[in-house]
């Protein structure tokens, strides 16, 4: 393998590494957000707001 091909190979693999690590970081951020949403949903024992229905006084 000559020097020029090796240099191109380094550039290509470097770019690939940068992209994959960057994508993994972005996915990691998304996972963190989703987990926060999940915990929030876990915490809410009651039904969703807006669907609560009250009909006046107790019989």
């Amino acid at each position, binding site marked *: *393998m000559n020097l020029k091909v*090796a240099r191109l190979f380094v550039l290509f693999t470097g770019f690939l590494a940068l992209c994959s690590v960057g994508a993994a970081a972005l996915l990691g951020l998304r996972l963190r957000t989703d987990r926060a949403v999940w915990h929030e949903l876990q*915490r809410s024992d009651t*039904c969703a707001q807006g*669907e609560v229905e009250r009909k006046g006084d107790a019989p």
Partner: protein
Amino acid sequence: MTGGPDDETRRTQVYIWTALFNLFLALAGIGLMLWIFIADRGVREDIARRRAEQTACARRVITAPQPMLVDPTEAAPPQDRPREGYFGKQGTEIRAALRLSFEALRGKSSVPVLEKLRLGSPEVLPEKTIHVVNLWATWCEPCRDEMPDFKAMFARRAADWGAQVRFLPIQVKDESEPGKAYSDIERIMPAAPVKLADRALGNPLTTLLESDTDRTLFKGGLPVTLLLDCNRRVRWGAFKQLNSGSLVDLERVVDQLRAELEDTSPGSWCTQSWPGNGRCEDGENTPAGHVLEDCGELKRRPQDPAVAPVAEVVPVECPEGSEATPDGRCKRKLRGNLGAATGTPPAQSATCGNGACDGGETRETCCDDCPCDALLVCKAAGDGHKRCMVKGLRGG
């Protein structure tokens, strides 16, 4: 100065090693990406399921501003007076305490998820289970001292007790952060699926347990250990640190309660039906006979029919100054004068202009005296009469 063939070979080797390192980094990144993607997909599925559950369960039909507390229709068996140690066959009920909500930690407290759970909810006190409830505080030395004894007892009996007997610690009279408090004591405490903390103003749990002078379940000091049977009645209690004798006694009563739990013959203690026994029985999940501590807040089940929406009231006759639209609604007329529309202006009253809306005068006959509707002003029309008209509209 240019490098020779050796220098070029060396540089090529450096490039190849760098490229290999990059390749390894890229593969690691791709692997990480795949792992995160799969984990995230699971979380997203859980979120979707939870949202679907919430939507399905959601239509509460509580008919009172507060959660309904209906007088029980079935009489509960009589209760025993609490005393140190064995309480008797009927036990003492803690129905009011079951309605209280506490901060709750589920699972390992190293990843604390603090949520709010009702003491009577099935996540905290599941049915067909015996519960050893322990009231403790971080400042209470005897509480810490007795924890290893509990842990040893649960470890020794883990094989035959299994999931039938659960330990439920409740942090009371203590402002410490529950996640920190439980992580500090976790290694000396028996495994507990749910850990509670009552940090509310006024210590509602202990206040409630000590308020009833006849059946006092809290005497001011910690630790307190209460043993709940299959009907969530306190069948054994200790109001100080357990010693070896009381631990043996506790273990004996737990075995006795387990035997009761396994007796499923008709009329046996753990199959009886009454409000407050921890089992959501027939009629207790209806608006008429709702039992909050057994069934939680009343919710419409997904298979129940939806409530019909209230029919919109369509007016039969429209009030003066408005007209009916094809969809049955009344719409305000923006042209102030019906006469103008038909080409026959109403005759003006003789007293028009005296400043008072006299009898027989209307805004059509004398808008000088009788005020126009909102958005309309009294102005001269093309025929010389004043009429209620839209501001800015030329008369005529």
